[in-house]
């Protein structure tokens, strides 16, 4: 099944061809492996999954609040619902963010709180863990339902001095709860942000993202970001693809959040079940010494 999917993907890709990752290798992430991309315009002999030195291994093995030396929080509703008319109020309460049984639980609840109708959480590694280039991946089981919007993403660490979209944004995983088979990976930058982001959808065959864990990741190096899910590499974005300056040659930090409502997904409806929980098994970041 995956093989045939990958073949289809190859046809869809504009300028790269590749062989699928070997699933076994994901069980041994430290194992050195290389997959050759054939016929690439960008790089004829490009390798993927070559970032092998762990720089962050957040396994969520301790119950309670996630490790405060890595994870901070953004609280409240931001400006205009975090710029997207999102409906939730973010908190750092255990009802919204908690580690249990080796899994981080980010939970969106329907409740009246500080003037909002929903609560949830948004975790950030800003000023705690920031890195330029690398392989960033997380193993996540997603929530579902109309108006549910989880994300695993990154922002340029200079965002305070260089406001969005100048700072750059890499969306490793975005997803609409009403489309539980569809993953969206994007980059935003000056001239290609919001609705004009450089983006690609990947649709699971005979499976969904809310019924089991899936690995969402990127491999990011000089002049490329490769997007993968499980053992399928589904997109590569290079400076040739973006309609503005390439702003991905500096440190970024990680965000994980579960939004409710907003422009991207629309509001929840009567059929949306609450609470909804995004389960994160791990977040791992690797570097490659020659590049990083």
């Amino acid at each position, binding site marked *: 099944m995956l093989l045939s999917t990958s073949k289809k993907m190859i046809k869809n890709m504009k300028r790269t061809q590749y062989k699928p990752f070997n699933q076994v290798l994901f069980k041994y992430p430290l194992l050195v492996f290389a997959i050759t991309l054939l016929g690439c315009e960008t790089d004829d002999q490009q390798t993927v999954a070559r970032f092998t030195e762990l720089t962050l291994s957040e396994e969520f093995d301790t119950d309670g609040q996630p490790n405060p030396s890595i994870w901070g929080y953004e609280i409240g509703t931001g400006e205009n619902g975090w710029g997207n008319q999102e409906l939730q109020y973010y908190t750092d309460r255990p009802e919204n963010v908690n580690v249990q049984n080796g899994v981080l639980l980010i939970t969106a609840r329907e409740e009246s709180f500080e003037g909002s109708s929903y609560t949830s959480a948004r975790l950030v590694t800003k000023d705690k863990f920031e890195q330029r280039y690398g392989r960033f991946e997380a193993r996540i089981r997603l929530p579902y339902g109309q108006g549910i919007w989880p994300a695993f993403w990154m922002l340029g660490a200079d965002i305070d001095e260089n406001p969005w979209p100048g700072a750059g944004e890499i969306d490793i995983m975005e997803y609409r709860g009403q*489309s*539980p088979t569809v993953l969206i990976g994007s980059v935003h930058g000056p001239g290609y942000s919001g609705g004009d982001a450089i983006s690609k959808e990947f649709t699971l*065959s*005979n499976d969904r993202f*809310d019924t089991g864990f899936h690995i969402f990741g990127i491999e990011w190096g000089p002049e490329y970001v490769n997007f993968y899910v499980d053992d399928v590499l589904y997109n590569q974005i290079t400076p040739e693809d973006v309609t503005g300056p390439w702003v991905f040659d500096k440190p970024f930090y990680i965000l994980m959040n579960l939004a409710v409502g907003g422009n991207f997904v629309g509001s929840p409806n009567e059929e949306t079940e609450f609470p909804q929980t995004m389960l994160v098994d791990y977040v791992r970041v690797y570097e490659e010494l020659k590049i990083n």
Partner: protein
Amino acid sequence: MFLLSVAFTLVIGCEREFSDDVEFAEFPPNGDVFIDTFSAGLDYFPFVDAGADPEAFSVETEEVYAGDAAMRFDVPAFGNGFVGATFNTTARRDLSGFDALTFYAKASKAASINSIGYGISGETNNKFQVTANNLNVSTRWEKYIIPIPDATRLISETGLFWLAEGASFEGDEGGYILWLDEIKFEKLGTVAQPKPAIFEGEDTTEQAFIGSSLTIGGLTQTFDLGNGTNQTVSIAPSYFNFESSDIGVATVNELGQVIVLGEGTANIIAILAGVRAEGSLEITSNGVLQAAPAPTEPQGNVKSIFSDAYVNDTESNFSPGFGGSTTETAITTTNDGEVVTYANNNFTGIIFDNTVDASGLTFMHIDVYVQQDGTEIGLQIRDVGVNQTIDTDVNTGFPIGDDKDLRVDLTGLTVGQWTSFDIPLDGDLATQKNNLGALILVGGPNFILDNIYFYTE
């Protein structure tokens, strides 16, 4: 069956595993129903006894979704029968590897199929029947998905597909063509997030007595189909595991029948494939219900609505579902026949399927049993007039148009006893009682009724 019973004896007697010689029969995991022709062993069984038109079905070779043939149903116009059939196979199938029945459908005009699904089987009494109700189809080919509530149950199936569609009233769509193609069971992998329900997801309460029984209704399973839509199907009780919190008070069998065995309160819940169903029943049994006084009027003097003593003059709807009504109504079988129980009544009615001509009758009889002090019930006997419809001023609740009614309060009720009322058909009904159409019941809120009939002395 014989082999299995032997095996059970061995297991119990010697605490051994099933012997290697004893294996459950396995049937082919063939999911095809109708691709371009009838799949292996499939046959057409129209519901002729129920009035279905057996000629309504044919195999179509022009208008197909894929391949070279489709199923075609010519849905008759109102009054000319209906499309109704099951497609069953003589050779059993193992459907446990699938998660949905899927098909493509198209109609010559937009329509809503009354019922469509699978699991009709005479020999199991439709034990695992699944029905999608009012499935909307359009004039272009589209794929439809009818999820399987719990596929592990479907290891030996014959009823692969059934449907019933017709014009249920003048003006309902009829006289059109419905095409179906590529009908098969599939493993989609995207049918998920089950939300089973009993009692349509409501937490209900009922009064009951030793020996009474009632059937759990409103059984559904709902799945998210992966495209943002939820599909709810009506399903047979045998998909559920029912649990009673006190089996000394009440038990539930696999047909969803609650049997009251003792005094006390039991909470009934249900689980489907490991998921707790929404909805429950809190049943309170107050011991043995004494029988209502036996009616003595001869049948010839009576037009009955609800009594074991008489033939009904008309069938009635005891749960009309008035907007804003909180009433829970149940027809309960006791050792002395049926009674109708009401809980949490604010207002409800008994709507007669056909009006009763009480021109020659002088009284209405009703027996009332209550268990709480101070219970009083407002009764309205409604004549719906020649237009045969209930016409009510929505602001005052009083009859308008050609309707008349008579209102009495059933008071002076004694706890733990039946009280009989014989109400003269006077007042506004004195001159108009030839189209009695409904009884309206206000307040209570908890009571039991029996022997409701009109009569003359």
